[in-house]
């Protein structure tokens, strides 16, 4: 276990920017944008109060809408769902960045050490190829998402509390109790965790495909990662006139996003999602294909020597 954890650590050392700096920067930027966003909003609301009969009716109208919404307690106190939507939006941004980072990570994971020839050093260590590949997969599916999750949670908490302090202290609007806020945070974060698990399982064949490309090519793994499916789609259309490959790929990608967004907003739907996922043949076929891709990676790393 210690050996495996060291290998995961190694991945973080190599991808410090992608896995550690990027979520921190994203959190900083989002929190900054939130603070910056309050300023014009505040001006608009203040402007509305000060110049109710202002010569600038557009600013007054917008300000009045926001203010009356807040003042009627509709958005915040009577419907905690609004908080969830706000949090879900913040969390979705982190999930989107993570997916992009993971695509680059997996497509490079079994290629970068061949490119810089450090593979000879790694291969001089008593670490099997299987455990090396699994540690990379675990880093991408569990390690990196954990860090992105923490960054999302910090940003979400900041977002929630800033908003509450602003609404409560500046405008004296009644805000939900601390308990309700913590509950919302908890619910939404649980949704994020569950949603990611589903998404990761749906995207496993795509991630494993990227790993296979990175283990297979001699140069530019991205070309194979995108080119091979594209060629398959075109070939199918040309030879058979059908577009099954395209549909399957879109379905797989859509299922991942759908599961994440649904559970993010309503984690109580877990049971339904479990049932619908477990009964989808495409899900199980995807897992089987992933296992095949991984075995091919291990074989390539063990039996091919090109340096």
């Amino acid at each position: 276990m210690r050996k495996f954890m060291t290998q995961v650590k190694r991945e973080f050392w190599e991808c410090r920017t992608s896995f550690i700096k990027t979520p921190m920067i994203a959190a900083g930027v989002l929190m900054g944008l939130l603070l910056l966003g309050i300023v014009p909003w505040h001006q608009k609301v203040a402007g509305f109060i000060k110049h109710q009969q202002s010569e600038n009716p557009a600013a007054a109208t917008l300000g009045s809408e926001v203010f009356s919404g807040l003042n009627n307690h509709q958005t915040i106190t009577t419907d905690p769902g609004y908080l969830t939507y706000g949090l879900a939006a913040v969390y979705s941004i982190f999930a989107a960045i993570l997916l992009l980072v993971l695509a680059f990570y997996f497509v490079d994971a079994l290629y970068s050490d061949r490119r810089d020839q450090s593979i000879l050093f790694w291969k001089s260590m008593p670490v099997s190829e299987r455990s090396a590949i699994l540690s990379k997969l675990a880093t991408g599916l569990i390690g990196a998402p954990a860090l992105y999750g923490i960054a999302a949670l910090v940003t979400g908490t900041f977002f929630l509390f800033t908003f509450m302090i602003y609404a409560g202290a500046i405008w004296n609007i009644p805000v939900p109790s601390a308990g309700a806020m913590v509950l919302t945070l908890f619910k939404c974060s649980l949704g994020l965790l569950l949603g990611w698990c589903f998404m990761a399982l749906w995207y496993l064949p795509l991630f494993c495909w990227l790993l296979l490309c990175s283990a297979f090519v001699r140069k530019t793994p991205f070309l194979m990662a995108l080119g091979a499916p594209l060629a398959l789609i075109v070939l199918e259309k040309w030879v058979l006139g059908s577009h099954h490959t395209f549909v399957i790929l879109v379905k797989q990608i859509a299922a991942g996003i759908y599961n994440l967004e649904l559970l993010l907003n309503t984690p109580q739907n877990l049971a339904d999602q479990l049932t619908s996922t477990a009964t989808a043949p495409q899900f199980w076929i995807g897992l089987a294909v992933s296992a095949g891709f991984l075995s091919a990676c291990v074989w390539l790393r063990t039996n091919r020597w090109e340096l």
Partner: protein
Amino acid sequence: MQPVIKARGLHKSYGATKALDGIDFDLMPGRILGLIGPNGAGKTTLLKTILGLAPAQGEIRVLGMNPHTQRTELLEQVSFIADTAILPRWLKVREALEYLEGVHPRFHRDRAEIFLQRTEIKATHIIRQLSKGMLTQLHLALIMAIDSNLLVLDEPTLGLDILYRKQFYRTLLEDYFDENKTILITTHQVEEIEHLLTDVIFIKNGRICLSASMEELHHRFTEIRLTDDRSAQAAMPQAIHTRPILGGQALIFENSDRESLRTFGDIRTPSLADLFVAKIQEERRDA
């Protein structure tokens, strides 16, 4: 005593080129073997086979294991430095120590740290910041802190200046080697390793053209230096190699009686470099 490496009938071809063409040898524990050959002789292929990095036909056993199928297990007892430039450039020195500590059951971090204290390498250095000499020092510090039974060095001092090269081998002998360890070295810089080898193998075109202990070399080969007097040569046995030297020539004999040769002039054991040239050229003549 079990040999550390046992190779029988190793063959490997890349297309029409025979990289290994029937290699047989045993390496016993506690020896330092120099594997010497011209470029493209099959040295690297042989090392890859020993380390389980590439399969070859024939029988190969390292510490009693099959290097290809039992590679992970084997690498707990075998260390290798393949080249000076293969440490990952993004890794920090501290991380390299932590990694080895985590994955290698026989790595002693304190030993590596003591060795590094004697150099200018800092734990916070990133590998890409190190000079080529420092890289080799670091790699050696990592490898020497592993209690391995077999150490394989493939051109470990390539591209280093003479000071680093001397230091490398001195450290290897003084701080690492003992009777329980076995070392296999390949290098082009024959002169520098000559004094530390116990055994030597010359390899050419995938075949072994000489395999002997340094002790045997002393008995088997004799060099004699003659002034430019051809008359003496007629009475001598057939030399395997002749080369011009200042004011005369040097002849190398194989399996000739030392005492009878002594009557013709000063005799000595040829240097490994001269012997290498002699044997490789002899092979060429025979071919």
